[in-house]
């Protein structure tokens, strides 16, 4: 009986000691998305961080990419916002305006802040207070991939830098020639297969409008009517509609890989930087990376990707920031991102990425970041802006009138802004 009592005492003291140890740990919740490779990479970074900070417990909340916004809304409603959250850069203004995020400049390691590229700073900055709310290791861009064999066959000019990108006339001329070339089923894959439930349309096609001399919204008056439905925008959308009507564009039903699919049925691809890793696996040296064409007087390319922010409800913003800084500096994580053709958002990461360095196969893509990158409208109404624009493009691609589609989109955007009294302090400036 005495022995049993002794053992009970020992066991209970061990249990309470371990419970006390667990209770002493500070839990940091990190909400994120990503494919299995990234999920595993984050897990390993957390293990290393916890080893270096034994009093911290990193708890991941995974939300699939296609349901991320719904998960975020549920977290807001349930008052269960995590400490750290990954967010898609164009939605930052909406989140800051709604009061979910806190400025991170005073919290993040200074060497990381000094290391950010201009485009990276832009994607994490809220334009009203010009404060930094999020930071990432990476940024993103879209380029024009070309099948070298086909381009040589039609005698196409190969631009060597962003400055000598193809003009609209050159681009459309090449599309026509490629449509008549043996082996080419479709002159260009614009990745319509991504559908209209992702950001792809606004992200990739928006710059075509901007290059043509218009925009999704007037970025000073924050009014869409008169801008999105302007002649320049209608002309740009009609141009894209013509490509579809002519059968030059890979249809949505054919999937998203016809540029590097077997037999290479598509000669060009308007694709994200991430396509390079997939394409090079099957096409080897038969790829050329070109800057996005100039559809008007100037070039334009997209930027922005998933970046890390700290929520206003976080009880431990200092530890949350410490984790973000640790993640962005982690060598193994950086090596993994580089292996996935991650687009540099930090200068030091660019130096570690031969793919994007001068003379590298994706150097032109990185050149776009400093010369032609245009952020998506950094406005709290962005969720409405993107949804309305995506619907307009989809309508036009399915045979609708571009003028009507854009007019209706512009109206929807302005109505949303009016319904929210101009999203003050944005509205105050009007």
């Amino acid at each position: 009986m005495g022995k049993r009592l002794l053992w009970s005492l020992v066991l209970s003291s061990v249990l309470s000691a371990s419970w006390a140890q667990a209770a002493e740990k500070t839990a940091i919740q990190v909400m994120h998305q990503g494919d299995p490779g990234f999920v595993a990479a984050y897990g390993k970074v957390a293990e290393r961080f916890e080893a270096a900070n034994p009093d911290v417990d990193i708890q991941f909340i995974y939300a699939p990419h296609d349901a991320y916004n719904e998960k975020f809304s549920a977290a807001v409603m349930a008052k269960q916002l995590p400490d750290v959250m990954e967010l898609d850069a164009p939605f930052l203004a909406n989140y800051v305006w709604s009061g979910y995020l806190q400025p991170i400049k005073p919290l993040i390691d200074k060497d990381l802040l000094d290391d950010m590229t201009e485009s990276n700073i832009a994607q994490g900055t809220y334009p009203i207070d010009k404060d930094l709310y999020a930071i990432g290791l990476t940024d993103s861009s879209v380029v024009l991939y070309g099948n070298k064999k086909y381009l040589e066959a039609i005698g196409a000019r190969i631009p060597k830098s962003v400055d000598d990108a193809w003009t609209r006339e050159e681009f459309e001329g090449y599309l026509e020639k490629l449509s008549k070339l043996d082996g080419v089923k479709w002159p260009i894959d614009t990745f319509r297969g991504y559908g209209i439930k992702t950001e792809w349309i606004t992200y990739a096609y928006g710059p075509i409008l901007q290059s043509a001399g218009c925009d999704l919204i007037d970025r000073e008056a924050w009014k869409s009517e008169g801008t999105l439905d302007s002649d320049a925008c209608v002309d740009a959308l009609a141009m894209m509609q013509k490509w579809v009507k002519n059968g030059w564009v890979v249809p949505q039903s054919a999937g998203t890989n016809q540029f590097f699919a077997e037999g290479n049925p598509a000669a060009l691809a308007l694709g994200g930087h991430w396509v390079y890793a997939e394409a090079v696996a099957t096409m080897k040296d038969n790829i050329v990376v070109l800057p996005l064409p100039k559809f008007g007087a100037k070039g334009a390319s997209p930027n922005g990707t998933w970046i890390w922010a700290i929520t206003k409800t976080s009880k431990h913003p200092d530890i949350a920031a410490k984790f973000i800084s640790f993640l962005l500096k982690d060598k193994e994580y950086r090596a993994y991102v580089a292996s996935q053709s991650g687009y540099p958002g930090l200068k030091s990461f660019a130096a570690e990425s031969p793919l994007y360095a001068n003379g590298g196969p994706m150097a032109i893509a990185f050149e776009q970041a400093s010369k032609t990158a245009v952020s998506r409208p950094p406005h709290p109404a962005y969720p409405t802006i993107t949804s309305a624009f995506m619907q307009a493009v989809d309508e036009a691609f399915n045979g609708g009138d571009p003028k009507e589609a854009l007019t209706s989109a512009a109206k929807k955007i302005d109505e949303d802004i009016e319904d929210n009294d101009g999203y003050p302090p944005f509205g105050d400036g009007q």
Partner: protein
Amino acid sequence: MSDLALSIPQARTARLRSPATVLRIIQTICIFIIALVIVSPLLLLVVASLKDDRFQILADMGSFRAYWVSNPTLSNYAEVGHLSGELAFGRYLINSLIILVTTVCSGLIVNSMAAFVLAWGSFKGRAVILSIVIALYVIPQESIIMPLVIMVSRAGMTDTFAVQIVPWVASPLYIFLLYQFFAQLPKELLEAAEIDGASFFRAYRSIFLPLSLPALATVSILMGIETWNQYLWPILVTQTDYARPIAVAIATFFGQDSIYWDRAMAASVLMMIPILGLYLAFQRWFVSSFIGSAVKG
């Protein structure tokens, strides 16, 4: 050669040429084609899961090569099985099975009880309650999902198995289905049970429930499929892999930049097996419930 010997092939030829036989052959061919169309997506899924190159899977789509694999491999299954930590598929699969079994079992009890009371209970307002139940069926899940999230989070239920089971146990559709079945059974059964001294609950448990096996099998299968395929709700109300089902885990393969078709296909096949098992287990009663409903006048 006798006349009889000559007449046999002639009779067979005549039979083959008869309009009824020709019609039957055409019917069989049509049924075969329809069956092939129905089965083809599943076949594509299984074949694709045996291919070792995700780019090849995509390249083959749209042609008959999608249904053929020259060098089958189980490497995708091995990769799905080997994933650990936050992506431990074994864990997700067990979670799904726990949620499935608990939801279906408790759903059968709750819905059948409700249906029986609505069909044979002796209280005022039964018709009104039944109308409300039917009216509830037309409310889309999407419209109540966010208020429901707030409710379960206030109740402290997030990240539990219960949060994925309790809200979906009682269902207007299944109450109505079972109500219809119970209501079709003769009232004499209940009267005889009462004469023998059985309570209302005893009549439900010992007489009406055993007679309702086809209807219960139908509800089990429908409820099982619905529970197994739940996707958005588990994402909204769970945080970690503690109670998350496999449908959420499969979504990991559909990344922002690329889709891991090879592993997604293998995981989808694994996900399909338990629900196929459920269907096979209840198939006999499921089919008989349809036949029963078809022959009733």
